[in-house]
């Protein structure tokens, strides 16, 4: 089980990785979404705000009306944001559940592919 702080730390690192990746920023520049990440074992919820490909904020709590809801185990959330697991694989295994359009699901996987091409 991962704590709220551990997940926020992982999110903060993910934010830096994404925002500092010029290629990713260019690729995602037409993508603005509000995301909720739900840790199903702890009940914690985290909100990520992406504006034109830039992660503007990460915070604890369910803020606003999300475009995308990602639900999984707290450990998987951490692993995902640290780049230690392939979210696409876990999604197809049913361990990660995503409520979003198929295009947004592909976008999320594309982000991982660009930041961690070996995952």
């Amino acid at each position: 089980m991962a704590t709220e702080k551990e997940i926020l730390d992982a999110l903060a690192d993910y934010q830096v990785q994404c925002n500092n990746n010029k290629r990713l920023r260019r690729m995602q520049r037409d993508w603005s979404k509000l995301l909720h990440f739900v840790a199903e074992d702890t009940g914690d919820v985290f909100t990520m705000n992406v504006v034109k490909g830039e992660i503007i904020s990460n915070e604890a709590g369910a803020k606003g009306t999300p475009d995308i809801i990602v639900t999984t185990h707290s450990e998987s959330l951490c692993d995902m944001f640290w780049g230690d697991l392939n979210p696409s694989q876990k999604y197809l295994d049913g361990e990660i559940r995503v409520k979003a359009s198929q295009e947004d699901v592909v976008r999320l996987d594309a982000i991982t592919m660009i930041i961690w091409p070996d995952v």
Partner: protein
Amino acid sequence: MKEDLKNIKEKVLADFATYISPMKVRTMKSAALDIVEEKRDGASVWDITGKKYIDCQTGSGIMNVGRHNREIVEALKKALDTYDIGVFLLCSKQNADLAKKLAEITPGDLKCTMFGVGGGEANDAAIKIARGFTMKTEIIYADKAYHGHTGFALSAIGRDEYKKPFEPLIPGFKMVPFGDAGAIEKIVTDDTAAVILEPIQGEGGINIPPDDYLKKVRTICDEHEVLLILDEVQTGFARTGKMFASEHWGVVPDIMTIAKSLGGGLYPISATIFTEEIMDFFIPHPFIHLSTFGGSDLGCIVGLETIKFIEKHHLADHAVEMGKLFRKGFDSLLRDYPDLLLEVRQKGLMMGLQFTNQSIGPRMSKKLSERGVIAIYTGNNPSICRLMPPLIITPKEVDIVLNALEGSMKELSQESGIGKED
């Protein structure tokens, strides 16, 4: 027997007129081009009645490797023993093999391929990619340009007749004169996504731009962060004496489109080739542009064999050599028939004879057909006779074509309606 064949031909033409296009049959008949192709071999084609022609039209450059090329026919036959067209949603070895080869033979950092079926589709894809990648909308194209009859490509054609009945077309397209880089500089804006050009205009009348044109356009595109799309559908695959015409001027586009001769005259296939940087547009959108039959496994096998044939037989060099033989003959014609022939525009075996007036192109087509040569005036300019024979044409066949031109022009020079129009 001969009568039987004539009857069969008449029946074919009647059915064609009834079920496909009465006006096409009428037009072709009046120009002595009501040829119903039967046997095809090398640079020649035989009408269903047995009359032989040298094909200098070749579907505007589909047959660079010759008609019914036996080496490629055998490769296709062999492929049919195992493969079908394949399922476009799956990954294919044949796709990967051809895309890798295209990355090798195209200039500069062109690397990634999207397959299609025809040239228009390839240009549609190129324009979509340019808009998607740059997130800008304007497309600059040239007067007399020809990029195909499909949606985006049609909007970039420089001929109103093809476009008017279908308006409103896709907005954001701006036309400039071909060959004038300054005109592009004047109208490029912060919202310009791409400039699309043919290195040499085919349908527009074999228009060869000034030597510094493409380089200047490349510089303008770089300065304004605009993509350069070069349409090598007619000029590609050794037609002009280089594998791609843009190589004559050392210009590398961001996106190149190819089609026609990639299919070896046997299987329709086209490709839109672009840089790795542009590929990034497709990473979040891997299924945003699909083609059911584009890049079929059989088409890719044919495409690869076609490229191998062009390389193995050094067709680019051969095009240069045969082009020189043609040029010698053209120079004589220019000297002997100044009232008929104004200018010859030529790069390798992409050749255009500029006549003194618009009626001469169609009349020459007719006279050439009567002498066993198929050569048709260009769609955007009937005063130009386009000659694009198969690149495997022999010196003897070049002589036959030149003799037919000489005979036709001699006859025409004795008729009325020649000379420059007022």
